[in-house]
């Protein structure tokens, strides 16, 4: 497989984390325009830990996930009372604040005669932990997908469990859920933290794949894209967001035919698709049908 295809596949895997993060919030009933902020938090914190302090990537990734969860709670706590568009706008405001804070972040140390670290709008170059250890692109692809498969397995386990049903009930009708004793606030905070950690994991992996990140990478476009991926792939199963990412990055980046027209084609596809399937390709009805057929 040539390096370009490996790169495309890796990107699909990386953005799947972000799409899953948006998906998690969607099935809990909240629409977030801000998951890209946690992606960025993971990227910056993980990158700083490996590039400036030489922390090995696995530990840096764990720390990145923890910081993503923490920041997600910082955003989730004040916004607990908000629903719908208000919540969405709050997450958008929070995410843009995070992006501006990245622009203001100047934290460089001198290592081997070179300045390493985030330099505001100039970005953060030299996140080369993976390169310096001779990890081949194919190996990195394997790492990304092993982690993704683990996350998917966790999702599938949760979906079938009582926790998953409770989660969806909170998403569908929080008042009803509360009336049967579900602690809606605690669920929402838990979901927010989990989604934040998930996005942050994607972020730290992205930073090390790209070796260079800048605040502009984590703007609103990324956030709305991830929301779109989750929605068009379908909200019935964790495979939905993956499908969404695959359709955009995989199908359309892979076909040279659409060079220069990719967004026009993709945009039209999405709009038409949502006409017929407002809950995505793999929505709850399809998933139920599939489960009934194959079990």
């Amino acid at each position: 497989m040539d390096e370009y295809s490996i790169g495309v596949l890796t990107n699909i895997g990386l953005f799947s984390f972000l799409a899953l993060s948006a998906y998690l919030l969607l099935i809990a009933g909240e629409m977030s325009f801000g998951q890209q902020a946690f992606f960025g938090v993971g990227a910056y914190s993980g990158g700083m830990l490996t590039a400036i302090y030489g922390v090995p990537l696995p530990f840096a990734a764990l720390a990145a996930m923890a910081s993503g969860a923490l920041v997600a709670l910082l955003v989730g706590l004040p916004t607990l009372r908000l629903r719908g568009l208000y919540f969405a706008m709050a997450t958008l405001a929070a995410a843009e604040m995070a992006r501006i804070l990245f622009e203001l972040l100047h934290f460089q140390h001198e290592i081997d005669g070179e300045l390493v670290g985030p330099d505001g709008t100039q970005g953060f170059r030299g996140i080369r932990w993976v390169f310096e250890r001779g990890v081949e692109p194919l190996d990195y692809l394997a790492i990304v997908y092993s982690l993704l498969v683990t996350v998917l397995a966790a999702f599938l386990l949760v979906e079938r469990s009582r926790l998953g049903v409770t989660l969806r009930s909170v998403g569908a009708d929080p008042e009803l859920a509360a009336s049967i004793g579900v602690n809606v606030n605690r669920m929402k905070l838990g979901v927010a933290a989990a989604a934040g950690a998930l996005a942050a994991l994607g972020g730290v992996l992205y930073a090390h794949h790209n070796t260079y990140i800048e605040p502009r990478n984590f703007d609103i476009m990324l956030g709305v894209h991830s929301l779109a991926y989750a929605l068009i792939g379908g909200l019935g199963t964790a495979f939905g967001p993956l499908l969404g990412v695959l359709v955009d990055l995989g199908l359309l980046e892979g076909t040279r035919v659409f060079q220069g027209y990719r967004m026009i084609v993709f945009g039209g596809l999405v709009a038409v698709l949502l006409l017929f399937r407002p809950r995505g390709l793999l929505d709850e009805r399809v998933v139920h049908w599939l489960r009934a057929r194959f079990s």
Partner: protein
Amino acid sequence: MAKSALFLILGLLSFPLHAQRVQAGLACTFTGTDFVYDCVVRLARGGSPLAGAQVTVGADMPSMPMAHNVKPAKAKPGARPGEYEARLDLEMTGEWAVKLRLSGPVRDQLVLHYEFDEKGARPAARPAKRK
């Protein structure tokens, strides 16, 4: 797969193989066809030109991430050692983040910000802030 697992474990314990950083410069001229540029990449390491590397040149637009679709081009060795030539087919003018991926004797990845216009490419002064 075993190889990658081994590397992970080694990575936890070992020191980085400290390669000296590669320095890169870019010079592009507009070919006349929208928006194709003939580019020359100059690579140096530790002050002397770096020859014999396999260079792939890609590009993304920082102000519109993921919106473009520029296929990475493999560079051919150029006239002088340390020089590599590639043709970049961009979708529009403006500021691009040119990504150089090096393999061969040296593995590295560099990102350079350049402003592309009708004449060629100049290093971008500072990444422009969106309005």
